[in-house]
């Protein structure tokens, strides 16, 4: 399943989130900021092996064709803003409209307030994030790529939501344009997940 991670500004930390999720061995020990634009990981949901492929939309905003294609090829999206920067939050509406317009209407969108470790510099209240998510029908979570808090949950919850939609038959798994495909082994599913954060998107796939 392909998931895309998107955001309209740099540095909200989506690529770090992605690396944190796909490769735990990169612990931010030496005070390093490391991120990545693509990652794949197997997870298990309800006993089914699912391969998540996560694509980051970083650096491609200048090409309209690319962003719109990413939205469309993804089964889910993580929309990431930085809780220490209000401008990243204010931009969500535009992003969301864009995503809704270009994506499959069934795309699961999760709203993520990243950098929850930086409580002292917080500019966006958790309640604001919750309210936004509720108004637009998104799932909401605050994470920290640094402390790994909620990172696992964010991706897995998104995957679960997608999985549930697959089970309900909302996604047509025979249509690969949805970002989901049946894997060769286990008759599992592939999906793409996309998220929005600081100008990056990632898509993922599950098997």
């Amino acid at each position, binding site marked *: 399943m392909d998931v895309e991670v998107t955001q309209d500004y740099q540095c909200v930390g989506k690529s770090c989130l992605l690396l944190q999720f796909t490769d735990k061995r990169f612990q931010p020990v030496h005070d390093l900021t490391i991120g990545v634009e*693509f990652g794949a990981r197997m997870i298990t949901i309800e006993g089914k092996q699912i391969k998540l492929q996560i694509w980051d939309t970083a650096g491609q905003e200048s090409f*309209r064709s690319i962003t719109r294609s*990413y939205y469309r*090829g993804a089964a889910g999206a993580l929309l990431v803003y930085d809780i220490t920067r209000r401008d990243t939050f204010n931009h969500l509406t535009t992003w969301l409209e864009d995503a809704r317009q270009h994506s499959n209407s069934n795309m699961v969108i999760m709203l993520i307030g990243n950098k929850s470790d930086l409580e002292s510099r917080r500019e966006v209240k958790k309640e604001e994030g919750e309210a936004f998510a509720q108004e637009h029908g998104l799932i909401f979570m605050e994470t920290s790529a640094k402390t790994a808090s909620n990172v696992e949950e964010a991706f897995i919850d998104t995957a679960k939501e997608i999985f549930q939609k697959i089970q309900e038959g909302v996604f047509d798994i025979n249509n*690969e*344009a949805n*970002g989901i495909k049946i894997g060769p082994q286990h008759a599992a599913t592939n999906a793409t997940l996309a998220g929005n954060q600081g100008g990056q998107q990632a898509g993922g796939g599950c098997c």
Partner: protein
Amino acid sequence: MYHILTKNTTVTEHNRNLLVETIRTITEILIWGDQNDSSVFDFFLEKNMFVFFLNILRQKSGRYVCVQLLQTLNILFENIGHETSLYYLLSNNYVNSIIVHKFDFSDEEIMAYYISFLKTLSLKLNNHTVHFFYNEHTNDFALYTEAIKFFNHPESMVRIAVRTITLNVYKVDNQPMLHYIRDKTAVPYFSNLVWFIGSHVIELDNCVQTDEEHRNREKLSGLVAEHLDHLHYLNDILIINCEFLNEVLTDHLLNSLFLPLYVYSLVDQDKGGERPKISLQVSLYLLSQVFLIIHNAPLVNSLTEVILNGDLSVFSAKVEQDVQKSSTKSGIRCFIKPSESLERSLEINKHKGRKRQQKRPNYKNVEEDEEEEKAPVEGPEGTEGASKGTKPSRENEEIEMVIMERCKLSSVKEQNITDEEKSAAAARTSIWNRPFLDLVYNALECAEDDYYALFVLCLLYAMSRNKGMEQGTLERIQLAAHDVEGESAYNPVLAERLIRIMSCAAQPDGKIRLATLELGCLLLKQLVVSKHGSIIKDVHLACLEGAREESVHLLRRFYKGEEIFLDMFEDEYRSMTLKPMNVEYLMMDASILLPPTWTPLTGIDFVKRLPCGDVERTRKAIRVFFMLRSLSLHLQGEPETQLPLTREEDLIKMEEILNLNNSDLIACTVITKDAGQVQRFLAVDIYQMSLVEPEAARLGWGVVKFAGLLQDMQVTGVEDDSRALNIVIHKPASSPHSKPFPILQATFIFSDHIRCIIAKQRLAKGRIQARRMKMQRIAALLDLPVQPSTEVMGFAHSSTAAAQHLPFRFYDQARRGSCDPAVQRSVFASVDKVPGFAVAQCTSQPGPSPLSSPSPPSSGSTGQCDSAAASSPSTPSVVQSPSEDTAASEQPRAPSFGQLAIADDSPAPLSRSGKGLGRNTDVETANLSPSLIPAPQPTISLIATNSSDSLGIESLTLVPPVDTDCILAVGCAPPPSAESDACTEAEGSSSSHSDDGQP
């Protein structure tokens, strides 16, 4: 670490984990080095670590190591911040060796990591770094050439990555590199791309043609989105504006795809023939998309020329030329029809594939690589290179041809074709042999339905809005109004067809979808409105007015006194103004490709299908009415004065400071959900209820802390507290995604039971009256005639009441316009009346009549909708009070007292100047007297109980219900003689007003 690598040069099962961990750690250290200490890089370079990487790759080290290595490189390149570090990493050509390494691309994960690696690299490209990838001497550009091999990979994410890479490459302004791309790769890549798109289109067409019962929609929307992706991609390339790349690309697009496949299919719908064809609707649809998305001037202009002015010779002539050329050019086919491009591309793919196969297995060491790399590039280029040179010239010829045709056309243009001449005109146009344009006009005749018309409108709209379009191109068909030396002209044929679509939409059984109508309105505006205003001819305007008249008649059939009609009416207006049609979004929807349908079960948006059921027919009629009204006003240069029913400027706003002297205010405690508790005064205005708090500076003035529309309010009692009311006001949903959002959701606690009941009564009455007034205004908009009533007194009363409210809006406007406080006051004096009183005033001082003159349009029919609204079945339920049963017995008495009190008291607050609070005062004055009476009841409950038996007929026939009138009559009892006079007078004046008031 270095030592580990030296010791473990061969990958075995055994050291796999160790190796992976080592590679990972190296990355981490390198990035740390980049961010902190550059000596790390020196060491890395010194020891030639990349060689180890390569060595590991070359051994068939298996997927695990491969993936880790690629991911490592990804991380490495992505996180390097310093240019110098990047140069270190890129020097020595090792990266290129990794790029051309033959990975196992059948493994989806390796593929994904590999392509993201290329993508990461491409993001690092700039004028300096490009030299590490592009070798001018050996003509090598592995990053690019390897990437484009995957342009049609089945995995969409891979295709997206390839497109990203190519765009990132084209973006780099490095002339030698771009020349290389044009000379060596552009032709094969673009021709393949074009073929790839073309074959998708044919699949799409198949999908449309074989569709039964809309079953292919899922697949269809995927294909349409794919096509859009391609167009956006092409447009992104064109926007980069690399001149010679654009030349090649434009040429390919025009001559291999747009003209032979899309445009040709417009005319030749014979099933036979060798050329591949797509159906008419698909080709129109796709062409609209092309014009909506691609704004590259040379491309759109040539394409438009052919569509508007070309004839079939464009094709035949070219084929002939091609034949000639192909003979001279030793068998190279220049004009690439899609069928041929299939062969060609297959051939190329074969070439490529073979070369790749040959090349890949040989990968043993770096030296060999470099020789081999050239092979795949030269392969396709060899076969393509020659054909490329001939193309630009062909394009020129084609344009020349078109220019010749232009001369013929100019004469046609001048003709003034009117209604009667239409058929003759059609004949004439066909004489001029413009098959494409003919087709466009013919499709606008929606005799059967608007299936094709919608696409044609989109196409015309897209063409006219295209930024790359030259003015002259469009003027030839006069698609937009233009003035030539004071004399203005537009395309009469087109205008007339558009108007016909409109009048068809206003027919009860018209099969025009709302989207078609809206687009038609847009186009017509564009067509006849020039810089200096509308230039529409009288005959066309008359036809348009006719259509509008019909839409009014149509809507009248649906006009009902039901409460829901008002909500629908306002909701439709809102959605029409808030969300004007976005043609680009419309053309993204694949569902319009299938024949128009009725049923909402398809999930197709309401505006893109025909209405189903009564409610939808009503909604459609409302929309048609709005659109034609707005169009007609626009073309006549008149401002809209009647819509929306609630105008922002009429409303009390938050933080506004009002003079509340003599206003009725009820003190209450407002408890909101988040446990906030504030002391406020409740005031009820004509359209709104507001919560105010005293203003510190001036006694008797208040600051509005909240204002919400009465019509959207719900009041319920609180079960265990007779002093409390629950009040919810919803804000109408502004977009389909957001739910109706409660702007107020609170419990109001009053000082005692009685004040609570009073407040409830005020609110409930206010709600009904607010709705009634709006219904009256709708009726006025629809020119509904006044129906004389036998209940003269009651009816007249209600109609005057309405007449009294309506001026309020206009007065209010006037008042706001002028700053004269005296005027203000007098306005309020005449306005701030309860029905009964207003009547009295009318008679006693005829003075107000000049003031009320602006209102007549709406006053005529108000009485009847008034009562209709009151009798609507849903009203009582909303205002139902918890104590209804106990109070029910007293109903008949209490309200009349209230009314009497109003009538008696209202003269007093005449001089009140509180803004828009007239209603308030009445309401509040009434307060006083009922408070003397035990357990007063809301008037509404009375209406509800009494009207229950007569409801059915009234709501249908619009005859004022008897009971309402009775109540009102009772209320008006005090000045009976004055009132009856007033009634007659009011009625007379209002009907006469309504006659001349409505155009």
